[in-house]
């Protein structure tokens, strides 16, 4: 097994793991952070797919802006009531 294939497999496993965790995590803030992690791993995947343009956009927009929007919404909603937001 070549090093490249091993890296790809590891990356694939990391993508699936972070996606699964971000869907099933009990805490919402952790779910959002895992989603951002997922986005960063996805950036690597785009690099492996020789798509640096998408990698740049994914890092900036997919992980960055979307993550920031989600975190900001989480923060704003949390000001209301902690119990309900974090379910």
């Amino acid at each position: 097994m070549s090093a490249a294939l091993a890296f790809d497999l590891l990356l694939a496993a990391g993508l699936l793991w972070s996606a699964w965790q971000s869907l099933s995590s009990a805490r919402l803030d952790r779910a959002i952070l895992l989603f951002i992690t997922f986005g960063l791993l996805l950036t690597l995947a785009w690099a492996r797919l020789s798509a640096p343009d998408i990698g740049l956009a994914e890092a900036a927009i997919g992980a960055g802006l979307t993550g920031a929007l989600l975190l900001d919404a989480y923060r704003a909603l949390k000001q209301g009531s902690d119990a309900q937001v974090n379910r």
Partner: protein
Amino acid sequence: MKKIAIQLAALVFALVLGSAMLDLDPAPVDLRPAVAAHLEASGVAHPVTAVLLNYRGYDTLLEVAVLLLALFAILAVIPDSQTGRPTPAAPVLQTLARLAVPLMLVTATFLLWAGAFRPGGAFQAGSVLAAALVLLHLTGLLAGWPQPGARLRWGLAAGFLVFLAVAAALLLQGHLLQYPPAWAGLLILCIEFALTLSLGLLLAGLFLFLSRDTEGAP
């Protein structure tokens, strides 16, 4: 019960989809030679930018419209009466942000210029610009935006307007968005420049308009 059924269905679907992907013949159409063959006439040397702004530029025109549209919808939903300056960050962070923003402007300019012949372009540059604005907001140096005044509205729409105007003007020559090869490079650069500015404002706007809507629950 319903939950388990949905998850089971999703699993089965994933397996069916994956196995169907494994036995697939090579595609009968290959656009790569065509993309390469017309690269000279497209006005840019980077194939992805050529597809994005020339071969399938019409998609991109509508995509910017989708972004504007989302912004209109957000503006239609948020209330007017809110003041949204976040609590200022620590002075150290503010200084760091003041230092970072010019660097980010340089990066954006580089990405915009690079798009013509290597990875980069208006979307990446615009998102860096947006990130700079968001950073200023998060460190308390820039307030959230209210309903936009005329100047901001023009700024938000400028990229789309230039794109639309070029598309319509080229209609006189023959077809929608049909760049004459001699002018293609210059026209695309103009569009990308205006798009970068507007995309920066638009993407930042998604954040800055929203961040005003922080009133607590009743």
